[in-house]
């Protein structure tokens, strides 16, 4: 398989008192090696649920993959289907081949473990290193994400860190096993804009260094313009449009994409205009 990941006719459903909720309804997409694919949509579009399905994490919230396949390239000759793979195979993939960072670094970190322990635990588990070597690698990772004084910070707890720093810790943890695919689910939404800018640059730098592909989920079109090699637009569980950033922004084909692009305030667009301006509503 030439691509890193190929999802085909993927559906994720939730059972509820009101019937079946089709959070993701038959989507197909691919992720190429080393590329950044932006998955964009508003709330309820199904973007987060899609992302979680790539590691079969939906079961945590009582969702289930109702149909489709997710083919993942483990090596040149070995491809697995994440939908059907057995539990021990899935364990080898999670954290190791595919890794994820979330929006809320506060709730994604274990508050009773030091950040150092959390990262080295993951390394010990996936890379079968002893405690000392895992600790060395952890300090390396903390350095990589530019956390100052990493040996000292190793012993600190998450509540000692600010939101931006916690997100760096999350990134260190996610990248410690050099995954081929990093799933970033709104990683900067909870951060101030200047911190966001630093984290986005950090992620970009790390991608250049480590060569992983990134599935970047966001509702912020500004971030999409900055990070994406390709864009997928989702609405109500379906893919509405797919294309290169320039196409999506300057020449959107679909009605919804046009509405989305029109609704985004583009900084600098008010140059020379004296009075405030309404958004052009389609």
């Amino acid at each position, binding site marked *: 398989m030439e691509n890193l990941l190929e999802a085909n006719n993927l559906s994720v459903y939730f059972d509820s008192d009101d019937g079946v909720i089709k959070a993701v309804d038959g989507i197909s997409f691919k992720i190429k090696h080393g590329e950044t694919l932006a998955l964009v949509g*508003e*709330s309820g579009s199904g973007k987060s649920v899609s992302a979680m399905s790539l590691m079969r994490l939906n079961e945590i919230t009582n969702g289930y993959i109702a149909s489709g396949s997710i083919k993942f390239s483990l090596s040149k000759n070995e491809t697995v289907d994440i939908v059907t793979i057995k539990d021990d195979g899935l364990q080898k993939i999670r954290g190791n081949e595919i890794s994820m960072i979330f929006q809320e670094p506060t709730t994604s970190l274990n508050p009773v473990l030091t950040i150092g322990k959390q990262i080295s635990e993951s390394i010990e588990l996936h890379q079968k290193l002893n405690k000392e070597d895992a600790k060395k690698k952890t300090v390396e990772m903390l350095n990589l994400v*530019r*956390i*100052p004084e990493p040996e000292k910070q190793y012993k600190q707890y998450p509540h000692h860190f*600010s939101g*931006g*720093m916690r997100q760096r810790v999350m990134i260190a943890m996610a990248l410690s096993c050099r995954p081929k695919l990093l799933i970033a689910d709104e990683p900067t939404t909870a951060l*101030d*804009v*200047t*911190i*966001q*800018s*630093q984290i*986005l*640059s*950090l992620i*970009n*730098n790390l991608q250049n260094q480590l060569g992983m592909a990134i599935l970047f989920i966001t*509702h*912020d*079109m*500004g*971030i*999409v*313009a*900055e*990070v*994406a090699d390709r864009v997928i637009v989702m609405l109500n569980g379906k893919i509405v449009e797919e294309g290169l*950033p*320039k196409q999506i*922004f*300057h020449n959107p084909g679909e009605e919804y994409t046009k*509405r*989305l*692009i*029109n*609704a*985004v*305030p*583009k*900084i*600098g*667009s*008010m*140059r*020379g*205009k*004296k*009075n*405030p*301006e*309404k*958004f052009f*509503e389609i």
Partner: protein
Amino acid sequence: MSNRLLEVKNLVTHFNITNGIFGRTTGVVHAVDDVSFVLNRAETLSIVGESGCGKSTTGRSILKLIPMKSGKIIFMNEDTSSLSSTEMQKMRVNMQMIFQDPFSSLNPRLTIGSAIAEPLKRHKLFSGKDLKDKVNELLVRVGLLPENANRYPHEFSGGQRQRICIARALGPKPALIVADEAVSALDVTIQAQIINLMMDLQDEFEISFLFISHDMAVVERISHKVAVMYLGRIVEIGSRIQVFENPSHPYTNKLLNAVPVADPNVARKSDGLLNDEVPSPIKPVGYSTPPVKMEEVEMGHFVSLN
């Protein structure tokens, strides 16, 4: 009638941090540290800044929801610090607020009709059939059907709830609405609709908005004037054109540069060598911040020197 609606002079709002069983004050949060600005009728002044800069506290201090430490608030030619609580209650008809979270700002046990009627009843502006008609009129004005009056908040989406909050704020016919991150929690297409609604209402009713936000791109769209806040102070203030096209304070530049541009032709992937955090606004007890010194860069455009 003067065009000047609100004048804030040297506003200072501090919070004490207490520790231990005796409640000893061990530090002071300098949330708002000498803020001054003017807001005219039918004008939108945006206060923009990152978390902890003091923008929300400024809004609440102006509405006297939080007691200020010192300063003057002159609203509709009245010094609000000299008003008795009954007089202030009368004044509150003219100043309303919309909050960030449309979920927690509506009482889940009141129908939305009752929620909208509440301030009108409180200030004895309408009653009986007139009240019902007014509520329906407000619902229609914000783009909702009057039949919805008997439904509860949980039956509406985030964008619809924000419309309900706007209807509630609009009822008493305020001259000023403080919108505290009022669109930040909304999807981008809904955000655009709500912003358009606010601008229509400004044209129709000559309402002034004090628009508190962290989103520079939205602020650029909606504002006549912009004040940039950092650590409790205004570091730059001027017309929207002045602040966005001629940013003169290093922090304003930093903020503008950090905003991702929604245009792949312009977007740049920056270097990422920075790793700085916002300093703490907590100071020791008794610390007195020196008064703000502003330089006028061009007419009406001021930049802080300290």
